[in-house]
C-alpha cells in the first residue's frame, strides 16, 4: 500500500495520524492469516506456524468473511499464514474475493507459484503478490527460512516475471544479517520488475526466541534509517519503521501504531487480534464466528475502544521525540516484556536497552498459540472442511477433549 498522505488535504482539521488514532469505520489494512500450515519453519515466524489447526475457518466461513469485508468496503486484504497457498481452497477464495471487489495481496514463500499460477495472477488487477525473502544470498536467507527456500523464492519470481506480472513485491524482514544487503535486495527486485518491501523484525511468535540475536544493532538501525530516507517512496515499509523517525525527518507513511485503529488481524481460526504481530490473548478482540461477525468485533470490541482512546504516552511523554515515534510498536514492547506505555525496545534514544535490562528475561510473556512443526513427528494430513465439525473428533479421531478456553467463543 502506498499512502499519498496530504495529497488531497483541504483545510485540514489535523494531521492524518491524529484523525486515524480515533479509529476508522473499517480497517485500511486487514491481515488475514488463512492457515497455520506451512511447508517452512522460519525461525522468526510471527504466528509460530507449521501445522494446520483443525478449527480453521471452513471455505463457507471464509466466504462469509469476504462478504462482510465487501459490505464494510475494505479495499483489500493482506492474506498470509502459515503458507496460504497450501490451503486447497486458496485459489477459490482469491477468486471469490476479487469477484466481490475485495482486492487480495498475499504473502507467500513461492512454493506453489509455478508457471501456470503466475500466468493466472498476471491476468488480474485485483491480486498482488509478496514473495518473502530474508537474505540476498542463499546463505543468509536459508539460515532463517530453511534450506532451499532461497531457490524456491527465486523460482517463483522468475515465473512471475516470465508471465508479465510487473510490480509484485519482494518482501524482506530486516535482520542483523541482511541489513548490509539492502542494495543487493534492490537489485534483485529490479531484475524481476518487482518492488522492494522492507519490514521490521518483531519479537512475536517464534521471533521472540531469536529476536535478541537477529534484531539490528543500534548502529545498523541508523544505517537502515539513512537508507530508507534516501530511497523514500520507492521502497514500501508497511509503516514498519516509525520508531526510527527521531533520527531525523519522519519516514513516508502514517507514522503511528495502527493496532485496532487502521489495522487488525484475523487468524486462521477466526480470532481477531489488534495487529498481525500481537497473537496473544491480551490483544484478542473477538472471533468472526460470534454473532455480528467481524463487523461487530471491529466496531464494538472493548479492546479496540481502549486502543482508539487518547494515549497518555506514559514514561515517554517527557521525551522530546515522543511526537515523532509515539512510543513505537506495541507488540515489540509486549513480547520483550516492556510496559506498553514506555519506550520501544529499539528506541533510537537508547531508552529501550535500559528498560530491557531492567525488565529482564522473566518478564517476557509466552505466545498464546504454537503451531510449530514438532521434530520427529510425522505429519498428519488435515483436510479443510466445508462446514465446521460438530465435535473435534469428527475431524480427527485422535483429538483430545476440547479444553476450556477463556476468552474464546
Amino acid at each position, binding site marked *: 500500500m502506498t499512502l499519498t498522505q496530504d495529497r488531497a488535504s483541504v483545510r*485540514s482539521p489535523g494531521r492524518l495520524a491524529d484523525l486515524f488514532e480515533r479509529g476508522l469505520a473499517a480497517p485500511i489494512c486487514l491481515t488475514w492469516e488463512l492457515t497455520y500450515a506451512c511447508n517452512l519453519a522460519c525461525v522468526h515466524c510471527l504466528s509460530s506456524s507449521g501445522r494446520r489447526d483443525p478449527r480453521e475457518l471452513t471455505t463457507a466461513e471464509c466466504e462469509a468473511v469476504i462478504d462482510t469485508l465487501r459490505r464494510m468496503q475494505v479495499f483489500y486484504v493482506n492474506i498470509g499464514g502459515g503458507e496460504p497457498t497450501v490451503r486447497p481452497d486458496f485459489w477459490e477464495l482469491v477468486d471469490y474475493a476479487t469477484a466481490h471487489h475485495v482486492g487480495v495481496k498475499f504473502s507467500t514463500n513461492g512454493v506453489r507459484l509455478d508457471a501456470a499460477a503466475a500466468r493466472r495472477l498476471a491476468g488480474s488487477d485485483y491480486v498482488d503478490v509478496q514473495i518473502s525473502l530474508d537474505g540476498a544470498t542463499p546463505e543468509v536467507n536459508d539460515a532463517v527460512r530453511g534450506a532451499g527456500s532461497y531457490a524456491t523464492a527465486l523460482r517463483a519470481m522468475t515465473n512471475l516475471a516470465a508471465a508479465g506480472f510487473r510490480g509484485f513485491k519482494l518482501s524482506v524482514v530486516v535482520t542483523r544479517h541482511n541489513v548490509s544487503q539492502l542494495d543487493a535486495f534492490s537489485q534483485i527486485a529490479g531484475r524481476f520488475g518487482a518492488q522492494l518491501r522492507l519490514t521490521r523484525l518483531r519479537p512475536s511468535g517464534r521471533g521472540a526466541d531469536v529476536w535478541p540475536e537477529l534484531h539490528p544493532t543500534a548502529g545498523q538501525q541508523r544505517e537502515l534509517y539513512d537508507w530508507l530516507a534516501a530511497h523514500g517512496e520507492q521502497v514500501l515499509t508497511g509503516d514498519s519503521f516509525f520508531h526510527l523517525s527521531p533520527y531525523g525527518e519522519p519516514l513516508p507513511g502514517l507514522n503511528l501504531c495502527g493496532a485496532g485503529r487502521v489495522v487488525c488481524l484475523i487468524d486462521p481460526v477466526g480470532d481477531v487480534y489488534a495487529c498481525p504481530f500481537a497473537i496473544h490473548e491480551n490483544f484478542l478482540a473477538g472471533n468472526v464466528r460470534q454473532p455480528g461477525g467481524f463487523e461487530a468485533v471491529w466496531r464494538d470490541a472493548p479492546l479496540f475502544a481502549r486502543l482508539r482512546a487518547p494515549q497518555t504516552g506514559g514514561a515517554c511523554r517527557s521525551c522530546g521525540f515522543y511526537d515523532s515515534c509515539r512510543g513505537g510498536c506495541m507488540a515489540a514492547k509486549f513480547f520483550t516484556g516492556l510496559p506498553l506505555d514506555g519506550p520501544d525496545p529499539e528506541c533510537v534514544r537508547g531508552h529501550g536497552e535500559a528498560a530491557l535490562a531492567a525488565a529482564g528475561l522473566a518478564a517476557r510473556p509466552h505466545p498464546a498459540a504454537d503451531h510449530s512443526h514438532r521434530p520427529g513427528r510425522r505429519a498428519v494430513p488435515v483436510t479443510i472442511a466445508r462446514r465446521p465439525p460438530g465435535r473435534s473428533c469428527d475431524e480427527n479421531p485422535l483429538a483430545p477433549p476440547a479444553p476450556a478456553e477463556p476468552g474464546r467463543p
Partner: protein
Amino acid sequence: MRPEPFGALLYHFGTRRLSFLKNQTVLAVVRSLADHPSARAACAAAGVPDAELPAYARALAALADSKMITERTLA
C-alpha cells in the same frame, strides 16, 4: 470511495494507491463533480468560499494526478 467520520478514503485498484479526503466539503465536491459542468461549479454548489478555491483546485489536481478522478468522456 469509503465514507469515514472525517471525510472519505479512496483506493485505486489499478495504481494501488490510497488517498484521503480530509473533510466533508471536499467529499461533497468530489461526489458531485459529474453533475456539474466544471470543478469550479461543483465547488460553488458545495459552498466553497472563493478564498479557498485555490486549495480545492490543488486537492482536485492531486486526485487527478493519481488518477482517482479523470476527465469525463463524451457518452
